[in-house]
């Protein structure tokens, strides 16, 4: 009797696990529908994409694009969904995504082939490359000047990887986030800080004395920004991509671009013709 009891118990456990397996890894749309919450990953200090502004609110170009995706999700599911924003950082965002703490990373994540092994990306919504920010008058003008100099990066970023692999002469100092790295640069502990060019322009214009900083170098890497989501989730990906395509086609995207990068904004960065063409070509026909 005891032995058959054990067999029944084990069989029961296996069936439970099998049922759990079937219920595991729900699609993102199902998860949002059931929980009523759509969580996006944002940054605290990456202006003008995703940051906390002077009024202590979350703001940014990426945040605004994410709100367009949020509206599209509400339309698709036919119900109201709460938008939650959670802070992510280069080193933590993929684990947060795969563990389902966030549903979409919408800050400043570069779309790369190795990363596509772990996550899926939406359409590219911004292109930039890595540059250096230095104090005005610094002898560093580009990658040929960085040998033996202390260059700051963010832990886990693509820029760190590029410098580590291609520019081994440079002395790399990696910080957990941009705020720490920029403070080290301000205090003279770094000769330059390497990050995506547009974010460096954001840092420069948001600093207390923009004239003191220069963004130098030619893009040492190509950094296309995409929104990251969990793998094998085509329905959700279609919703996100459709939202972005609608925004580009309907002009909403360009309005947002003008708001954050236009002539009157904090970080003026005119859209190049090549980028505009690229954006328009990403919009597949309805």
């Amino acid at each position: 009797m005891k032995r058959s009891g054990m067999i029944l118990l084990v069989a029961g456990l296996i069936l439970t696990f099998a049922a759990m397996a079937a219920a595991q890894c729900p699609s993102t749309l199902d998860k949002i529908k059931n929980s009523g919450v759509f969580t996006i990953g944002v940054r605290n200090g990456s202006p003008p994409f995703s940051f906390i502004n002077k009024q202590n609110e979350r703001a940014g170009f990426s945040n605004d694009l994410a709100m367009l995706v949020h509206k599209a999700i509400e339309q698709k599911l036919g119900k109201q969904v709460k938008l939650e924003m959670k802070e992510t950082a280069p080193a933590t965002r993929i684990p947060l995504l795969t563990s389902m703490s966030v549903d979409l990373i919408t800050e400043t994540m570069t779309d790369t082939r190795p990363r596509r092994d772990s996550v899926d990306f939406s359409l590219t919504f911004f292109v930039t490359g890595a540059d250096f920010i230095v104090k005005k008058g610094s002898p560093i003008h580009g990658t040929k000047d960085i040998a033996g100099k202390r260059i700051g990066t963010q832990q886990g970023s693509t820029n760190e990887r590029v410098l580590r692999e291609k520019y081994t002469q440079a002395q790399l100092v990696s910080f957990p986030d941009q705020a720490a790295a920029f403070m080290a640069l301000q205090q003279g502990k770094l000769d330059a800080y390497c990050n995506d060019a547009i974010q460096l322009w954001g840092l420069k214009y948001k600093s207390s004395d923009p004239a003191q900083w220069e963004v130098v170098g030619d893009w040492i890497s190509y950094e296309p920004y995409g929104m990251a989501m969990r793998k094998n989730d085509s329905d959700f990906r279609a919703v996100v991509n459709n939202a972005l395509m609608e925004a580009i086609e309907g002009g909403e995207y360009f309005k947002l671009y003008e708001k954050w990068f236009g002539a009157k904004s904090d970080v003026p960065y005119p859209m190049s013709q090549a980028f505009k063409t690229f954006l328009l070509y990403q919009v597949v026909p309805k």
Partner: protein
Amino acid sequence: MIFGFLGMTYEFKWSVLWVQPHLTWLIDGISTTLRLAAISWCLAVLLGILFGAMRTVPFRPVRIVATAYVEFFRNVPLLVWLFFWYFGAPEVFPEVVRQWFIRHGIEFWSGVAAISVYHGSRLAEVIRSGIQSIPKTQLEAGISSGLSVVQTYRLIIIPVALRLIVPPATNESLNLLKNTSLAMTIGVAELTFATRQIETYTAKAVEALSAAALLYLVLCLSISTVMNRLESKFAIPGLIARGVKAEH
């Protein structure tokens, strides 16, 4: 994979740990952690013995200084101290001195300063409790034998106190080793930094963090084994009750 029936889609890939350049990162990380821990430990022990003894001397001003040191440094989180010693303290020095520090591993030495001063204050308390558990009669006997207070401390009280405090001191030493992982927030490329790096480059979190756990476990077990040996080797017979041999 056996976990497939749980519906897990994670693929284990343990080779990320020993493939180059990841292996070099791990080895560099271990060596930085050990260097940071060793130097900080030596300084922390010196500070601990100094201030621990100072808290027990009969002169009130000395006791106040030592108490101030202990309470000030142990009641603030180590992470805050790390930021202070890296972003705050160097600004006090003149430009020339600062530039010299920057060229000579300021991240590492700020980490050493923060960890050694913080753990120095904690070790001071451990040592104080060791000293104060020695009967006052020992001090009186030493002074009445013609030794000065300093000599009594140096030759009689502190050697015995050191043997008494081996278990809590081992605890603090292991804490020190583990706290070196916090130095990664100021850019020190130690072991935790190296395993996080592997994790972000390969997205294989389970493998990378298991490696971190295992390596810290091995390092800490080695230290506690050594401390246990020290405890047995330097034991004063009959001083501390041990449940090993019964007296006949």
